[in-house]
């Protein structure tokens, strides 16, 4: 690339005056023409693929990093919360060490993960908190996603206050008394009202409607990501400050910052049907696994293994805590758990 272009140009200019080069643009062997030629080549390639081999269904194209150097690869979706990382870490460890697969992980938000799963960009989601619309579309209508069974963990969303605060003020755990405490939960962000801290926009939440319908003197402040929410909660806890937050179990943070749930009006089947009129608590959800339909059929041992993968809330928390609190890498955490729970995972192997 670096060749002296000035001298070449002047040479060309001179050549132009004298002879045969005059009518044809002079060609040089190196340097300048190379990118052009490469460009032409790339263009030709594009054209060839466009006209040559007919249809290309991009919903069936795998990741370019998959199956490198002849390995059998499984791609798992990791959601952003640590519980999901724990599932994936253990599944990955066992797939690699017991079944000889290579595992790629991709971090995707919940709803886009369904889309990626239906396209085969990822092979499995190990922890889903219930997405009825997507289930209808991909599992029932398009049949591109297959159910993978229970994960064994039951998830629950709710409003929580730190236990140190609940012990001093036991009546805060009933929603009817929340307004009494609103000014204690005030922050600069929430202005004159109490702050209800919400997390990532990808999570299922009815909090805005709840605050409105239960006539609470609170403002929902969205942390925008779980990482930001956790950081904030930890800072509050360090100073023993009161806070009210949207939270869920199982979650490793409750081991570090003990939290007590605030009772909302009880959940009844269908009470959350109209998102604008919700005035009841969140349900308890048995978390589900989902597999790409093709993978479920042809995925061999890996697919069988992932279908059988099932553990308890305590197991998941153990691994999650190692990752998030002791800062072990997911791989080290998975190894530790696998080494001490052989009887549990033996039954998952095909």
């Amino acid at each position, binding site marked *: 690339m*670096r060749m002296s272009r000035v001298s070449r140009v002047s040479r060309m200019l001179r050549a132009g005056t004298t002879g045969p080069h005059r009518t044809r643009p002079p060609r040089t062997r190196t340097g300048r023409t190379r990118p052009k030629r490469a460009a032409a080549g790339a263009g030709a390639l594009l054209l060839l693929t466009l006209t040559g081999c007919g249809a290309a269904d991009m919903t069936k194209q795998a990741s370019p990093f998959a199956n490198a150097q002849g390995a059998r690869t499984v791609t798992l979706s990791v959601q952003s919360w640590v519980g999901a990382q724990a599932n994936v870490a253990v599944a990955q460890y066992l797939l690699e060490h017991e079944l000889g697969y290579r595992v790629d992980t991709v971090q995707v938000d919940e709803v886009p993960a369904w*889309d990626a799963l239906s396209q085969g960009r990822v092979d499995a989601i190990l922890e889903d908190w219930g997405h009825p619309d997507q289930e209808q579309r991909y599992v029932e209508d398009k049949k591109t996603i297959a159910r993978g069974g229970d994960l064994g963990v039951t998830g629950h969303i709710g409003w929580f206050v730190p236990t140190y605060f609940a012990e001093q003020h036991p009546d805060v755990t009933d929603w009817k008394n929340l307004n009494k405490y609103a000014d204690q939960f005030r922050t600069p962000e929430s202005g004159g009202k109490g702050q209800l801290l919400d997390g990532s926009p990808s999570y299922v939440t009815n909090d805005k409607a709840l605050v409105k319908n239960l006539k609470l003197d609170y403002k929902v402040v969205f942390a925008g990501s779980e990482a930001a929410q956790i950081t904030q909660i930890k800072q509050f806890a360090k100073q023993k400050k009161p806070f009210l937050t949207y939270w869920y179990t199982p979650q490793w943070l409750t081991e570090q910052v003990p939290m007590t749930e605030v009772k909302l009006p009880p959940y009844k089947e269908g009470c959350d049907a109209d998102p604008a009129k919700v005035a009841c608590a969140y349900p308890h959800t048995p978390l589900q696994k989902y597999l790409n339909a093709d993978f479920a059929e042809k995925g061999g041992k890996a697919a069988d293994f992932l279908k059988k993968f099932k553990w308890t809330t305590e197991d998941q928390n153990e691994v999650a805590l190692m990752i998030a609190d002791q800062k072990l890498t997911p791989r080290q955490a998975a190894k530790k758990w696998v080494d001490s729970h052989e009887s549990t995972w033996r039954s998952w192997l095909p």
Partner: protein
Amino acid sequence: MATITATAQKSSPPGILAGAAVRKLLVLALLAAVLVPFAVTRWSSGAWPEALTVDVSGPLADVSDWIIDNRDSHPLFLYFLGHVSNVVVIAVRAVYLALLAVGWAGVTAVAALVAWRVAGVRLALGTAVAFLVCGLLGMWVPTMQTLALMVVAVAASVLVGALLGLAAGLSDRMERLLRPVLDTMQVLPAFAYLLPVVLVFGIGVPAAVLATVIYAAPPMARLTSLGLRGADKEVLEAVESLGSTARQRLLTARIPLARKELLLGINQTIMMALSMAVIASVIGAGGLGDRVYQALASVDVGAALAAGVPIVLLAVVLDRVTGAAGARLGQAPAPNSRALWSAALAAAAVVAVAGRLAGRLEWPVNWVVGIADPVNRAVDWMTAHLYTGVPVVGGTADWAGRFTTWVLDPLRDGLQWLPWWSVLLTVAALAWLIGTWRTALTAVLAMAAIGVLGVWDQSLDTLSQVLAAVAVTLVIGFATGIAAARSDRVERLLRPVLDVFQTMPQFVYLIPVVALFGVGRAPAVAAAIVYALPAVVRITAQGLRRVDPAALESARSLGATSAQQLRQVQLPLARRALLLAVNQGVVLVLAVVIIGGLVGGGALGYDVVFGLAQGDLATGLVAGAAIVCLGLMLDRVTQPTERRAKKGA
């Protein structure tokens, strides 16, 4: 049009200039006097009137459903987009496999030897060290994945950019057509258009590459066109007088003469592409960006940094090497340059083959140094001791609280309280004073579009954050820039710091700012300031240093003190650079304030994040469009016309 007014302004004495400003304001006042009463009686005052909004959520939801339902069957996808996606996948895969096949020793050797030939021994050593550090941090494979993606994305961006630039450089009509588009692209925060790309291509590498190309191609196009148009007229005339055809002129004179701009364009494209590497991980780019993103999810700053450092190293190395190549362009080559090239390539090949034979293709597992723990301890210490209760000055959380209550809240409430027509008028006045009636019109239309889309309040919230962040950035940036311009030592000390902060992925410091400032708008503003500061400092320092030494000398001989020199000579003469610094500051701040949606910044940023997270095109795209409009408006209000005229000429 723009050119004429600009030159007229420049040559006219200040009195007339002030007259022009007064005239413009008078015209605006007249317009307002006629239109405002009409608008206020017809609609309402206060926030943007409901009657003037258009609800686009229904149609957008339909579009989204249609794409998802037809993605595997409609010909548009099967015969066009599918192939685009396919070519990207194949290309990235090819590069990735090649990199893996060469092995870590081979890749390092090739990079170092190319750097040696192109840019000299020192940079070659730097390159080798950079690659080895990537390996030492345990990031070899992700680095290769990112590198593969970057190679393809940069190649595509350069190709697309060069073609567009060629068209714009050769045809005035294309130039007129493309310039507003490129101008707009330049101010677009990347976050705004991830969603549509994802919707069409799905999560994954093709979407990431295409988003990167959209982001990185415009500077190449701009600079190519600029280079072609800036070619020395006399040389062109000489070539023409020799009777060459248009094509010959292009190939033998215009393109070679523009090579400096072309190389600068490639340099810019690489930097832009790398800065996308992390943002694109939100849509499944994999590689280093994904490691940063995953580490942040478990609030692990150390691990995020371990993945962020290779990105910074790659960026610095590529920047310096392409920069050095550009600087060497005009020089004559060493007499034995071809022999040295072959020697370099042969040496690289030997190392690669040796690595292969030794069976050491993969980075050795035990050659990894963990930096995560010490970094996390340092961050913990910082947040534990600085967060609150520091004697006298108060902790960072207290500052953030005060900043939110005393600056951000009044600013936001004030903006939202302003009647909508007065906001439009202010925008018009600012844009017209600094530019032409065209720029003013664009700015006003952009602002009105925000209202029509029905996101007036959120946008003003975002705007208040931008204004607060820009104000702080400019105060600190100008002060530091002046210090750097006046002292060589300060500048030498600052340079590596600026380099690092300019290339460090914004995501890496999102978590520390939350730990320091809590959740909310304050951390978003803080992150934006950190991100925009280096560019402002740099442009200020450069602008001040370029001030004509003769002018300074004469001021000094008249006995002006150092402060007087600065205030009366340097700053006025560097006015253009300072305005550019403001413009850049605004654009960069906006980009990060949007990402601040991830740490509680709320407003438009949150809507975009929400749209991405929920696959909700209606929310995400409307917010994205509003961000574009906001960016356009801010750019026009801060972009002096002289600069644009010069670019077009």
